[in-house]
């Protein structure tokens, strides 16, 4: 017995497979580790020696300054406030897109509208018109309505969503017709059916959409840059640059604080994906009808 075991051929494949996986994982993780170690160094050190692989002694100082020190020209913005603004943008963006997308899909799928398919394709083609293309007119409209430097102005122009409408449409089409009929016989009107049956049925899809849209909203850069001029409205992604840049020339740029802030900016999307990932896979691949 022992003989046959020692004779068994050594297999290279698992070693190679794991080698590739480990390399890939390192590629993803190392920049974050380096950012973290660098952020624990004093600003002077960072300027002198660049990126650092060693943990320094400034970690807690940089965290607290990233979160709580007031910055910007006016001094009315802190990391916490930016975090809050980003959160409002991300959640408002995701929730708004889901509500609008669901309602649009509901109308297209369940009501015998005359040009439902046509309307759907019109909505679908807006995928070809991302914000960058229509940014001037969008800005004109929002500015004309006096919505610059407001959450409404930040969120509203972005929430019409072809992607969400498309996903919900596909999902609704897969809901069996008999379920609709059973609900009709049970006396559920259009609104009741939507709220009592369709929304609960779509919950995995809603979760999946929420993740995608939240991360997308959180990472918005161009629109917030354009629409927020007052510093207390800054989102995290927009604010980081400001921190590093501010008081340029007069003092040493606060690299530690800036990098730390960037780390914090990564955290919420990561947490959301980690917590919801099983829902995410479920929502996009299966349904419990």
């Amino acid at each position, binding site marked *: 017995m022992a003989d046959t075991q020692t004779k068994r051929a050594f297999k290279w494949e698992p070693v190679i497979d794991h080698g590739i996986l480990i390399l890939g994982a390192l590629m993803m993780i190392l920049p974050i580790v380096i950012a973290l170690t660098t952020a624990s160094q004093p600003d002077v050190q960072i300027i002198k020696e660049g990126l650092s692989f060693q943990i320094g002694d400034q970690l807690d100082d940089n965290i607290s300054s990233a979160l709580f020190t007031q910055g910007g020209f006016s001094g009315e913005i802190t990391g916490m406030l930016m975090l809050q603004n980003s959160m409002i943008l991300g959640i408002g963006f995701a929730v708004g897109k889901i509500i609008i997308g669901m309602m649009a899909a509901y109308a297209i799928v369940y009501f015998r509208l005359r040009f439902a398919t046509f309307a759907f394709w019109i909505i679908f083609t807006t995928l070809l018109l991302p914000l960058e293309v229509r940014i001037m007119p969008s800005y004109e409209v929002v500015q004309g309505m006096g919505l610059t430097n407001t959450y409404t102005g930040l969120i509203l122009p972005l929430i019409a969503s072809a992607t969400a409408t498309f996903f919900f449409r596909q999902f609704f089409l897969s809901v*069996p017709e*008999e*379920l609709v*009929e*059973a*609900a*009709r*016989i*049970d*006396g*559920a009107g259009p609104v*009741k059916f939507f709220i*009592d*049956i369709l929304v*609960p*049925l779509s*919950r995995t899809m809603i979760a999946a959409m929420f993740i995608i849209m939240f991360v997308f909203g959180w990472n918005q850069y161009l629109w917030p840059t354009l629409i927020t001029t007052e510093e207390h409205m800054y989102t995290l992604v927009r604010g980081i640059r400001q921190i590093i840049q501010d008081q340029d020339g007069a003092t040493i740029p606060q690299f530690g604080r800036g990098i730390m802030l960037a780390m914090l900016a990564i955290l919420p999307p990561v947490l959301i994906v980690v917590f919801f990932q099983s829902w995410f896979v479920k929502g996009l691949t299966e349904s*419990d*009808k």
Partner: protein
Amino acid sequence: MATVSVTNISKTYPNGAQAVHPASFSIADGELIVLVGPSGCGKSTLLRMVAGLEDITEGELRIGDRVVNEVEPAERDIAMVFQNYALYPHMTVAKNMAYGLKNRGTSKGDIDAKVREAAEMLDLNAYLDRRPSQLSGGQRQRVAMGRAIVRDPALFLFDEPLSNLDAKLRNQMRIEIRALQRRLGTTAMYVTHDQVEAMTMADRIFVLNAGRIEQIGTPSEIYRKPASTFVASFMGAPPMNLLTATTDGSGNAQVGDLSIPVAAGSHAGAVHLGIRPEEVTVTAGGGVPFQLGLIEELGASRLLHGKIAGQDFTVNAPNDDAGLADTLSLDLPTSSLHLFDGATGQRL
């Protein structure tokens, strides 16, 4: 509890296809009628028109003494059981049953009592807090039944409710549904394509073909006196044998070279000569010659497939395990023969 009366009801789709030709019938209080026919014969459409899920193009539908043509399904006082159960997957069994009542504004106490009563009746007590996905097919079907029962409707509608179950469960549920319907005394319409279900469950059977009702009758009427060759060949397993023949009007039918005695009638000309496989007997000699082809063993009996004068013919003979010759002699009793018009297929 209610009667249903239907006057010249028909369904034409916008593209001009006529799914249901004008039909009139009435259903007595507490009666279970079965609509049976091949796929696409309009039986489900007819049922869905009664349910209110399809518009009625023309005609009048009354449930009880109300004309309900324009009434919403929920207001028609009906309950429907679907083929795929159509349970709400995110609700527990209890909530599935309660949903219709809740929408009607029934009080919570009443709902609980009714759900409990229905669960008791259907043996679902242990499952009230489960989701449909945690139940077996038979249990889901029971929940669908429960959802219908709690509404205490005037009319039950069943749309092929047993098609998704395996054969054994189907037999069992068939009996359960029938017993339950009798006990509740609720009028019911039941759609199926399975003629065994139709025969065993129905008070009266409606046989449909291509959007028309071919025959309405009790199971034994349908079996004994089919109104047309379609009914004759659709109902019964194996179906009735139909031989193309000509009659001379004086008690003889000519099938190929063979002459078979039939009841003397005035009709002369092309006919279909029908006889049930189980009413044919194999005799020692002197009968109609039959070329045996294939034997199907059924245990108690066996099916002999072969030809009479070159036309397909099946005999259901008792199984005595004896060997059979290639050519047998059959007795076709005159009293068991059915005559159908050769052109229209109508019973003569």
